[in-house]
């Protein structure tokens, strides 16, 4: 006989779900609907009224080469920071899982960066990476002019990618480590007895078993790198030099909150949302096929 708690009617079930639905409505659907509405109007910031302009806001954005630049920079940022954050976290987690000396300390220490707010993090990295006064200025004493995020767009992009990745390494690390520890000891021991060394075990056993976690983190990291990067950019580079680090989300913030162009920012948010949705669909459609859940 099957013992399972079920609800007799859908009403009771819905009632239980109601608080959550309400929260989602207030904090997601409502603002999103407002943004969609604003995206099709020109909204006066002080609320003096607005005018319907149809797709004008989108047309203006998509015909602007500078905006396309922001889109491609965002993609570069997302892909490289995701690769670094996941790669580094995986290596650290694999090493910690091997119970090397001090692994208990590493287990908690590596998580800390995620707890640091983006602006504080940006401030710290701005100091570390400053070409004249920072810790990295030593590089410039050896090779003058090699490192200068203030004047070189590429260096600035590297700087924000490093800062962002550093934060997410901690986040990814927790997931990787717990997934690794979920792999049965007996499996590892059996593999070891069959004569496979640590590296062999990683590629043939641990990584295949980690694919659900890898896939989950890939989706989260890509999504977050599109949305969570603005604090770091704002503190470290403000989109400069010469737009080299102007990401989509930073442009939304600048146009909306500093420029008070609510409609332009709303239209950009919609485009960003669509892009993230598209990327997520793509990942579920093509990458999830290779994930083994059992």
């Amino acid at each position, binding site marked *: 006989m099957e013992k399972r708690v079920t609800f007799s009617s859908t009403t009771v079930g819905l009632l239980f779900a109601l608080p959550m639905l309400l929260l989602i409505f207030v904090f997601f659907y409502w603002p999103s609907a407002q943004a969609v509405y604003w995206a099709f109007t*020109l909204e*006066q910031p002080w609320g003096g009224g607005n005018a319907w302009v149809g797709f004008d806001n989108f047309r203006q954005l998509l015909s602007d080469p500078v905006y396309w630049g922001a889109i491609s920079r965002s993609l570069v940022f997302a892909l490289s920071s995701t690769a670094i954050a996941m790669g580094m976290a995986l290596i650290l987690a694999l090493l910690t899982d091997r119970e090397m000396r001090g692994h208990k300390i590493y287990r908690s220490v590596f998580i800390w960066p995620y707890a640091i707010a983006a602006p504080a993090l940006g401030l710290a990295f701005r100091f570390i990476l*400053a070409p004249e006064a920072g810790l990295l*200025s030593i590089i410039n004493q050896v090779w003058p002019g090699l490192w*200068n995020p203030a004047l070189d767009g590429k260096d600035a992009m590297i700087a924000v990618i490093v800062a962002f990745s550093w934060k997410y390494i901690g986040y990814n690390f927790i997931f990787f480590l717990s997934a690794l520890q979920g792999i049965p000891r007996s499996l590892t021991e059996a593999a070891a007895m069959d004569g496979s060394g640590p590296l062999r075990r990683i590629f043939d056993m641990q990584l295949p078993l980690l694919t659900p976690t890898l896939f989950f983190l890939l989706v989260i990291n890509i999504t977050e790198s599109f949305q969570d990067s603005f604090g770091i950019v704002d503190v470290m580079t403000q989109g400069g030099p*010469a737009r080299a680090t102007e990401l989509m989300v930073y442009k939304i913030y600048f146009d909306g909150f500093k420029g008070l162009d609510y409609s332009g920012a709303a239209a950009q948010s919609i485009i960003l949302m669509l892009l993230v949705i598209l990327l997520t669909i793509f990942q579920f459609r093509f990458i999830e096929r290779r994930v083994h859940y059992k």
Partner: protein
Amino acid sequence: MQAKLLGAVGALLATAFLAGPAAAADKTKIDFWFGNSGDIAKRVQEQCDRFNQSQADYEVVCTSQGSYDASLQNTIAAFRAGKQPTIAQVSDAGTLDVMLSGAYYPANKLMKDMGYDINWNDYFSGISGYYATSKGEMYSFPFNSSTALLYWNKDSFAKIGKDHAPATWQEAAEDFKKLKDAGYACPLAFDISNNEVWQYIEQFEAVNGEPIATKKNGFEGLDAELIYNKNPLLVSFVKDLKSWYDNKLAVIKNKAVGQTFIEAFAAGDCQVILTSVGDHGNIGRTAKEGLNWAVSMLPTYGDAKRHSSYVGGASLWVLKGHSEAEYKAAASFFNFIAKPEEALTWSTVTGYIPVRNSGFEYLKSQGFYDKAPYAGRELAIQSLTVTPLSDPGPKGVRLGGLLQIRTEIANGLQAIFINNADVQASLDTAAERGNQILRRFQQTYKNVQLP
């Protein structure tokens, strides 16, 4: 017995509770939101405290919102939710948005309605002109005001045999060259990040008497167009600046480098900077031991005749939707901060300048500008009042999306300095993109008449 005692205590407590709010209710409380932070925020708070102690009828609650931008965003959000403060500080760049919003009680009308007779001509022309409507009416109260000055290191200039700051950019170019030859690594420090281009574009155009945009820099209509890129003086100046930069006579200093241009000057690393008079106090406090420095008015370019520079800072707006009593409180507060004694305290504890002639005269009579830490700040007033109010030229900049336009200009300049882009082409692109922002702004407010 015990019950009686308890009853008495209860009664006492009750009266205390009742009396408490009753006493406070006599006072009309109003909110004042401002954007300054750090030390300046403390000084604003002190001013509020002085007002609250000076009388018993009103209480102003002053709250710093952290920055000009945040203050404006919070005020707008509060206004849209119907919870706006009575008084809100809006920076120079945000003036046009609030002016077109209709969300305010015009300052001149407020003071008249509340029975105060304000002599609006007492404000310095350069200051009132910036905030006034095209008809010369004042809708807000100029509050913290400043303008750009040239800061120079007297000792290093003495080494090249000079005892005065350059009055023209041609003279400055020679000085920079001599300073470089005398072994100074950084004659001029400058920054072209988003917020720091106003000295080199807006103030440059002001001082040389050239417009940034048509329609008197936008004062006479939302259909203004940017034309700074067509001014040969400015184009030539940017080319000069670029050649100084290439020859290491001018160095970019900002947060990303690790040292801002202000810090570089205060540390004695750089010999000349252009910045707000509001930094005068800060530089005085943080300057390297024995740094011998002074300020002067911004240089002019070529044969251009000197004109007034533009004021920077913020003004105070009274917002709609409050009671008569609250407006009385606001008027009383404005009347209080207009006192010459307040101007003296304000200018002493901050680097800001008095906004009224009466305040300036009072400061002079108190010998304020003779003393070491404050001497030189009178040049800011001089710089703001070179041209009389009757002069037909623009008194400021009234362009929609000014912060975005500044960013376009900053990006144009960064392309020139960092990526070696063509000067004229970059300035043109920046102006063209700026014009798109202006047209968008005009379309947003197409049902509103610019006052």
